[in-house]
């Protein structure tokens, strides 16, 4: 066998292995997706949306409390995290630019984006839960804000930098003050990108469980008071899934399904936005 023949055979083997590993990897992932859809659809019913939590064994048991809690915790985090992140990102792109300070903030934010979220939970426990004396929806939101901030900051920074500088210069040439140039020209030019960043960022924090475990904690009943412990889909899912009761486990799958669909939709919408923008 010549060397070249050998190379061709090795090539075939490696390519087969690669295709195989792709199949295995993709197979696993679709397996998870299939289970999610199958169990989720099976568990989904009107009671899931209309009823609060109930002890195991009760027919009328749902996720209303967790859905509302989740929306409130994530909503409040978005309300604070997004504007703050956008303003900070604006500083990096429009004022700090390549300065030492801006670069340091970028680096630290990048690292924070991959830092373990459970540690953020511990931090918020120390600064919010301990002084208050009890768990609260606020504490959960604060933990999520800390996770959301660097994500929004970095995407805003990136997206603003994509706006061509000639656009800014043209606006400055008309005598506009900097804040107006930023608000009216730069933000407008980066709108789709920033929106995508927000959607992906919110999707990311909406799936966070670990930082909520000991901040917003949990509640099996509906509560809309942010100063009280609050249910979230993720923590409820965790508690129900690890419980020994089959009906609770089933409700856990419903929570998993609802949450995943929500997060996947945000991701898909975000991608479409960016895609549409590129297409233009």
């Amino acid at each position, binding site marked *: 066998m010549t060397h070249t023949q050998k190379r061709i055979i090795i090539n075939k083997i490696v*390519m087969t292995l690669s295709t195989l590993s792709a199949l295995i990897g993709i197979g696993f992932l679709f397996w998870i997706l299939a289970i999610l859809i199958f169990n989720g659809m099976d568990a989904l019913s009107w009671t899931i949306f209309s009823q609060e939590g109930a002890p195991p064994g009760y027919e009328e048991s749902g996720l209303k409390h967790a859905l509302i809690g989740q929306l409130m915790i994530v909503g409040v985090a978005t309300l604070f995290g997004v504007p703050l992140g956008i303003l900070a990102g604006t*500083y990096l792109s429009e004022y700090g630019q390549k300065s030492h300070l801006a670069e340091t903030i970028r680096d630290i934010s990048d690292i924070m984006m*991959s830092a373990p979220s459970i540690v953020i939970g511990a*931090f918020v426990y120390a600064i919010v839960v301990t002084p208050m004396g009890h768990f609260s929806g606020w504490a959960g939101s604060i933990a999520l804000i800390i996770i959301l901030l660097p994500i929004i900051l970095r995407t805003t920074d990136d997206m603003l930098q994509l706006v061509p500088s000639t656009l800014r210069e043209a606006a400055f040439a008309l005598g506009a003050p900097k804040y107006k140039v930023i608000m009216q020209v730069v933000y407008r030019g980066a709108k789709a990108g920033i929106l995508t960043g927000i959607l992906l960022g919110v999707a990311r924090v909406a799936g966070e469980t*670990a930082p909520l*475990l000991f901040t917003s904690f949990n509640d099996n009943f509906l509560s809309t008071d942010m100063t009280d412990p609050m249910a979230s889909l993720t923590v409820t899912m965790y508690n129900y899934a690890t419980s020994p009761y089959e009906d609770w486990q089933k409700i856990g799958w419903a929570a998993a399904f609802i949450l995943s669909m929500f997060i996947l939709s945000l991701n898909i919408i975000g991608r479409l936005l960016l895609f549409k923008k590129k297409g233009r």
Partner: protein
Amino acid sequence: MSVIIDKIFSFATKYIAIAILFLVAWIFTVLFQHSLDAMEAFGFDFITETKWAPNLEKFGALPAIYGSIVSTFLAMLLAVPLAIGVAIFLSELAPAKLKSPVGVSIELLAAIPSVIYGMWGLFYFVPIVRDVFGGIGISMLTAGIVLSIMILPFMAAVTRDAMNTTPDILKESAYALGGTKWDIIKDIVIPYAKAGIIGSFILALGRAIGETMAVTFVMGNVHQISTNLTAPATSIPVTLANEFTEADTSLYYSSLFELSLILLVISFTIISIAKFYFLRNKRLAS
């Protein structure tokens, strides 16, 4: 008027940005302060002591550290070859019609929250591990496998992106010398994208070691150091998730805070290595 608004705007954006740095410093400080009790009580022994017995007020972090390292190592061992395989498939092998749908599905799967992977692991993977490898199924091995599946989409996507940065013309030059696809991948694409690929793997490692929900379901939170991979174990995040709300003494709390601090320092270090040595000038994928 404009001038004043302009000043306020630039001032506000600047100090919010700087606040991020203070926030990070504050996190470290708070974790450190709350760890002081445990540090005073155990000193350096905290990380070498193997016994974790809250009822005896004895806290040794070694089983959790050991579990974090071993489960992450197992996860990388399984995920790295799979990720490379998937990346090669996506960047060099897949027909154009498959490339983008499969690629996008992988990216979307990377967005699915880890709690779902953990739940899947508990209900579907624990029984398989129990039947195939023995034990009760809740184990270090299960944690490693579930963790590897969880980081696979992220790793495959970034590895593919790194491979895709290889200029076509460079690959064509090697084909023009009579190379096979594999020759081109191993001699051109991988060396060209090396820094990006290694950086992404280390980044994935940094994320895996701090991952909580994917492993909490399937690890068991048993503070023991066992070479038997089918035995239950624990890791730092698993300990935190299970015990934080149960801690009833200040020493217990403090020990959990010290665990948090250790975890934060470890992942900060790993992520920094990825970022500063390998991914300089590259944006970390979110």
